[in-house]
C-alpha cells in the first residue's frame, strides 16, 4: 500500500513537471575560481535578458546555472551535466575560450546548441555545427589592437605577455603579431601561465628590450599584477590588452598601476547605438545601480539571440535551433546590430576602452573592413 502511494506521488510530480512545460536553458559560467568576475557579469546580463523575455513559444524559460570553477575539466563536466542531468534544450556559455573549447566539444557530440557570449578564439566554433557566439573573433581583435598600437599609440616596439595556458591568449598574441609585423613594427614575446603571481623575471627581460607598449593577452588577475610589477620596475610606457581585462576587478586589484591602460573589447555604454541598447543601459542601471560592462551586455545578447533563434525555429528541435542561431541577421542587441555568419561567428566592431580615474572610459570604435 505504501509503495503504491509513493508511486502515485512520484507519478503525479512527474506529470506536474510535464504539465508545467518549461524550456530549460543551461548557463555554464565560471562562477568561482580565477575568472569568476567574468561569470558574475555574464550571469547578471543573462538574468536581465530573462526578465526582458521570460517566455518562448508560449512556454516559460527556466535558467539553470552551472559553475565551471574556472577549470577546463569542469568546463566540459558542467556542459555534460546540463545536457544529461538537467535536460536543457540549449546552453549559454562559456567565457574563456579554453573552457568553451572543452565544453563545446561535448555540446557538439550530444547535438545541443550552445551560444558563447564572449569566447573569441577562432577554434571555438571551427568545424562545429552546434556552437556559435555573439562576439567577434580574435583575428579581428588582434589586428584592431595592432593597428591601434601602431597608429594611435605610435608604438614601434611591442613586447607581448602571453598566458601559455589559455588558447585565447596564445591565439590573440599570434594575430596581433601578424598584423603588427605587417605594419612594420618590432614585436617579441614573453610567457607566463594562469595563476602566476611573480612576473619580475619576465618583466626584466621585456624591459631590457625597451618597449613602447606592453601588450598583455591574458585575463585580469594576471594583467593587474603585471602592470603593478612593471611600474615597480620603472616602466613608464603604455599597457594594451585584449578583452580579458574587461572586469571591474582589474581596477580593484591593479589600482593606480592600471590607470591609462588601453584594451580592445566588445562594448562601452557610451557606444550604445541601438534602441534596445539604450533600454538595456537604463534597465541595467535600475537593477544593479551601476553602468553595464561588456560582459553584462554580451550575456544579455547571448540570451536574446538564442531565444530569437528558438522562436524562428518554431520548435525545440536542437538541430533547427542551431541552424537558426547561425541565420541571425541584423538582430538588434545591447552591443549593437548582430549578424552571425554560417561559421557561427558574429561580425561586430571592436571597441577600445581605457582606464581613467579608476573607471572604464570609451576611446574609439573600430569597424571590420575599415
Amino acid at each position, binding site marked *: 500500500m505504501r509503495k503504491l502511494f509513493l508511486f502515485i506521488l512520484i507519478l503525479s510530480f512527474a506529470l506536474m513537471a510535464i504539465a508545467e512545460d518549461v524550456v530549460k536553458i543551461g548557463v555554464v559560467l565560471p562562477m*568561482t*575560481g*580565477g575568472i*569568476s*568576475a567574468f561569470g*558574475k557579469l555574464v550571469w547578471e546580463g543573462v538574468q536581465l535578458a530573462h526578465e526582458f523575455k521570460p517566455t518562448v513559444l508560449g512556454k516559460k524559460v527556466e535558467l539553470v546555472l552551472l559553475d565551471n570553477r574556472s577549470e577546463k575539466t569542469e568546463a566540459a563536466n558542467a556542459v555534460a551535466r546540463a545536457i544529461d542531468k538537467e535536460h536543457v534544450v540549449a546552453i549559454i556559455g562559456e567565457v574563456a575560450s579554453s573552457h568553451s573549447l572543452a565544453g563545446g566539444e561535448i555540446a557538439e557530440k550530444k547535438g545541443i546548441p550552445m551560444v558563447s557570449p564572449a569566447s573569441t578564439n577562432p577554434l571555438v566554433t571551427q568545424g562545429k555545427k552546434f556552437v556559435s557566439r555573439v562576439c567577434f573573433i580574435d583575428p579581428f581583435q588582434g589586428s584592431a589592437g595592432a593597428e591601434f598600437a601602431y597608429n594611435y599609440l605610435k608604438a614601434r616596439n611591442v613586447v607581448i605577455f602571453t598566458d*601559455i*595556458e589559455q588558447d585565447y591568449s596564445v591565439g590573440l598574441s599570434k594575430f596581433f603579431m601578424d598584423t603588427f609585423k605587417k605594419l612594420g613594427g618590432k614585436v617579441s614575446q*614573453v*610567457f*607566463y*601561465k594562469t*595563476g602566476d*603571481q*611573480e612576473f*619580475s*623575471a*619576465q618583466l*626584466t*627581460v621585456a624591459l*631590457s628590450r625597451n618597449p613602447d607598449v606592453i601588450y598583455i593577452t591574458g585575463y585580469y*588577475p594576471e594583467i*593587474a*599584477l603585471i602592470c*603593478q610589477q612593471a*611600474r*615597480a*620596475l*620603472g616602466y613608464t610606457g603604455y599597457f594594451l590588452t585584449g578583452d580579458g581585462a574587461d572586469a571591474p*576587478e582589474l581596477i*580593484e*586589484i591593479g*589600482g*593606480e*598601476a592600471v590607470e591609462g591602460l588601453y584594451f580592445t573589447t566588445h562594448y562601452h555604454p557610451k557606444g550604445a547605438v541601438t534602441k534596445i541598447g539604450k533600454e538595456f543601459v537604463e534597465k541595467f542601471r535600475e537593477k544593479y545601480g551601476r553602468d553595464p560592462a561588456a560582459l553584462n551586455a554580451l550575456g544579455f545578447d547571448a540570451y536574446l539571440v538564442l531565444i530569437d533563434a528558438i522562436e524562428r525555429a518554431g520548435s525545440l528541435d536542437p538541430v533547427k535551433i542551431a541552424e537558426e542561431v547561425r541565420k541571425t541577421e541584423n538582430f538588434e542587441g545591447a552591443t549593437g546590430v548582430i549578424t552571425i555568419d554560417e561559421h557561427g561567428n558574429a561580425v561586430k566592431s571592436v571597441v577600445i576602452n581605457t582606464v581613467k580615474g579608476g573607471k572604464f572610459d570609451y576611446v574609439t570604435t573600430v569597424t571590420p573592413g575599415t
Partner: protein
Amino acid sequence: MTATLILQNIFNGIMLGGLYALIAVGYTMVYGILRLINFAHGDIMMMWIYFAFYAVALLSLPIWLAFIVAIFGSAFLGFLIDRIAYKPLRNAPRISALITAIGMSFFLESFAVVVFGANYKSFLKVFGKHQEILRKYILIGNARLPVLTIIVIGITALSLLVLFWIVYKTKIGMAMRAISSDIPTTALMGVNVDMVIGFTFALGSALAAISGIMWAMRYPNFFPYTGFMPGLKAFIAAVFGGIGSIPGAVLGGFLLGMIEILIVSMVPQVMEYKDAFAFVILIIVLLVKPSGLMGQKMMEKV
C-alpha cells in the same frame, strides 16, 4: 647579459626569495620543535590576509592596528588548531599527525571558500592612500630595487631576532627547546607540555601572519587558495635548507627565489615551467642530501 640585467635579476630574486624565506622560517620552527610538518602553515597565512582585510573593511580599524589584531587572530587560530586537531594525536604515530595537517590545510581552504567566498579580493583597498609605497624603488646603477624588497628583508631579520630571543632567552623558549629533545622528560620536570606546544603553534602562526603582510603587499589579489603554492614553495625551501634549521630555511628561501628568477630570465624558453623547477630541486635535495644544506643528521628516537 649586461651588468644591469644581472643586478636587476638578483634584486628580483632577493624579493621573491625573501618572501619564501619568511614563510619557510615559520614552517621550520614548528618542525624543529615538534617534528611535525604543519602543512596548514600557508593557509594560516591566507587566513591572516582575510582577517586583516575584514578588520579594515568591516571594522574600519587603522591599518597598523588591523594588522596587529589580525596577527593575534592568526596566532589564536594556530593555538586552536593545535588543540582541536593535533593534541588528540600527540601519542599517535607521526604519520597520523602529518595527514591531519594536510586535512587541516584543506579544511581551512574550504572554510574560507564558504565563509569569505571563492572570488578574488583586492588588498589594495586596505592600503588606501598608502599604496604608492608598493611601486617605489631605489635606483642602483640602472637596476631598480623596490622599496618593498628592503621592507621584506627588514621584517624577516626582525622576526628572526625576536624568534631567537624567545627561543634562547626566555623561560618558555627553554621549555620549547626541552620539548624538542624529549617530551616525557620535559613533562616530568613539571612543564605544562600542552601549553608550550600550543604556544609554539601560536608563534609559528604569528610568523605565517607576518609573511602574509608581505605577501599581500607584493601580490594584492588573494583568494582562499592563495596560501597553497607559497606554502609548498616554502616547504621546499625549508627542506632545501635543512628542515628544522632556521638559518637553513632563510638560506633555502633565498636560494629558491633566486633560482626561480634566474631560470626564467636566463632560459626564457622554459618560462612557463618555473614551478616545476622548484619541485625538481626538492627531488634532487632529497636524493643527494636528505638533511638539506644546513640540517643536521637526525637520529630517529627509539
